[in-house]
């Protein structure tokens, strides 16, 4: 086996060390991934755009700068992908929508800028649910993504293209976004690690907005260590995002090796009640016992209002989306209808033609919930219940350090199985949405396979800004187990 054939099996650190010790060049690493994308993407549809030429040009430049000693950081020379809702200068940025199918972004998102400056190589843009609205990657205007573990199954969503990309090792790391579970649920379905940091931890400048009181971006990769390395590059204050938080950024890799002895893990009883698939529950129980065997203390906690999270979310998120997506008017960018007869016709037809059904449903629900006479009954009420959900977590964190439970009630479901039933699709996210509403950090890491052969992820929830502790816990688990290194045979 030549070096190039095994680059995709390396961690971020492995790739970094390889290019910095001269074992292989950035160009060789980049080509190794580009070749895998060419070979496997037609089957998975995980990328909407592959930036082969600019990736190779970047690789030449970064090889030079590493040789001159100008670039030494942990991301220098490391290829990566981005969910296609991060603006990347000069590259098509579609949000998986016909509305933006020809949109070439004139600027870089904050995180794209950071990764570029750190010497990363952008391989391309990952498929997703249209405007990040969906849990199966089936609302994409560019076709659904297939799960590498079983190509008849969905990869989850909305960051489904990213999850499939990492599962099949078509990039060593990608950035996703999570509004109600869009990093954690696909990570669970695809046997990868993904973290949604605390609301405000990473700037959203240049990240196409869905629901502004919920959206947060985060890394998706095989391991917690890969996520920690990435978070070090992208977290922190940015004056261009007024919700970006002005708090010091720790070194997320510094405490990865800390012991978890004495760690108090809370299990919310509501997450283990009816609705959780028995096989998924069995895999979760086994992992909890592993933590217990390593000295963690397991306690039951309660989140009594968590069953209200999905209804709250389907008021708050659509309300905010109806406002955010009003910018797509057919005038300044995006799709414009043919021969508009007047301005209203231009708006109405451009938007009808440009958006897919799920996006239009949510815009309408949000418009309705915010309209005169309904605001108090829907939006205000939802924001009140949202506080109750947050208070449940605050109470739980008085007794425990972290919360664990399933990321999803089931393993990956079949393509088409829930496509025509929006409510069934919404209920997929019942364990991830409460965390999003509270603005807490949440992550998923692989803990094994159910009897159907499909992966199961553990959801780990920390208190505000406790990402370093969470990454430490997941990293420790990944020292005792090798689930996170497993790749489907046909993509090995």
């Amino acid at each position: 086996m030549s070096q190039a054939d095994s680059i995709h099996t390396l961690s971020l650190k492995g790739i970094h060390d390889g290019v910095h010790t001269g074992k292989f060049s950035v160009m060789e690493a980049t080509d190794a991934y580009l070749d895998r994308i060419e070979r496997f993407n037609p089957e998975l549809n995980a990328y909407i755009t592959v930036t082969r030429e600019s990736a190779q040009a970047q690789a030449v430049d970064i090889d030079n700068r590493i040789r001159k000693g100008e670039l030494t950081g942990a991301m220098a020379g490391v290829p990566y992908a981005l969910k296609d809702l991060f603006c990347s200068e000069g590259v098509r940025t579609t949000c998986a929508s016909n509305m933006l199918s020809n949109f070439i972004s004139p600027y870089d998102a904050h995180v794209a800028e950071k990764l570029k400056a750190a010497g990363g190589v952008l391989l391309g843009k990952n498929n997703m649910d249209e405007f990040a609205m969906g849990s199966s990657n089936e609302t994409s205007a560019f076709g659904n993504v297939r799960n590498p573990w079983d190509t008849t199954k969905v990869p989850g969503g909305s960051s489904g293209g990213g999850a499939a990309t990492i599962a099949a090792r078509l990039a060593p790391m990608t950035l996703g976004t999570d509004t109600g579970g869009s990093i954690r649920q696909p990570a669970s379905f695809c046997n990868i690690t993904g973290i949604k940091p605390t609301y405000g931890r990473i700037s959203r400048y240049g990240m196409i907005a869905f629901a502004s009181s919920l959206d947060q971006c985060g890394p998706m990769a095989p391991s917690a260590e890969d996520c920690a390395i990435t978070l070090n590059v992208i977290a922190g204050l940015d004056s261009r995002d007024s919700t970006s938080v002005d708090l010091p950024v720790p070194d997320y890799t510094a405490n990865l090796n800390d012991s978890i002895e004495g760690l108090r893990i809370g299990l919310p009883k509501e997450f283990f009640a009816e609705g959780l698939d028995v096989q998924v529950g069995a895999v979760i129980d086994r992992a909890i016992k592993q933590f217990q065997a390593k000295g963690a203390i397991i306690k039951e906690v309660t989140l009594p209002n968590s069953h209200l999270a999905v209804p709250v979310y389907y008021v708050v998120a659509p309300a905010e989306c109806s406002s955010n997506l009003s910018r797509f008017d057919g005038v300044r960018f995006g799709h414009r209808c043919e021969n508009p007869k007047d301005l209203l016709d231009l708006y109405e037809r451009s938007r009808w033609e440009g958006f897919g059904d799920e996006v239009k449903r949510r815009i309408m629900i949000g418009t309705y919930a915010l309209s005169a006479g309904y605001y108090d009954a829907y939006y205000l009420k939802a924001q009140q219940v949202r506080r109750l959900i947050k208070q449940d977590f605050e109470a739980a964190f008085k007794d425990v350090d972290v919360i664990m439970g399933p990321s999803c009630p089931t393993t990956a479901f079949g393509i088409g199985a829930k496509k025509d039933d929006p409510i069934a699709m919404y209920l997929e996210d019942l364990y991830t949405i409460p965390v999003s509403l509270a603005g807490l950090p949440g992550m998923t890491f692989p803990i094994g396979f159910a009897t159907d052969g499909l992966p199961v992820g553990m959801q780990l929830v920390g208190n505000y800004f406790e990402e370093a502790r969470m990454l430490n816990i997941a990293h420790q688990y990944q020292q005792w187990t090798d689930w996170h290194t497993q790749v489907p045979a046909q993509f090995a």
Partner: protein
Amino acid sequence: MAISEAEVKKVARLARLAVPDERLAAYTQNLCNILDLVDQLSAVDTTGVEPMAHPLEMMQRLREDVVTETDHREKYQAVAPEVEDGLYLVPKVIE
């Protein structure tokens, strides 16, 4: 809670979406289902609960009132559907 086809039509107009008549029934059904899901909230007692506007209870950070953006008109208009002399074109609004 039920929402009528007439209401859906009105909402679509407010949202600037030209929903064709033949799609109205399907949209109405879907929106009714979503509102049914959401209606669980009406049974919750929220007396005295402050609505949660920000997950971290933080205030919007303000910046100095100084120019930070440079002029990128040409760059930004390069992605516009129709422009002329630096202006965005729309159908005639005032006769």
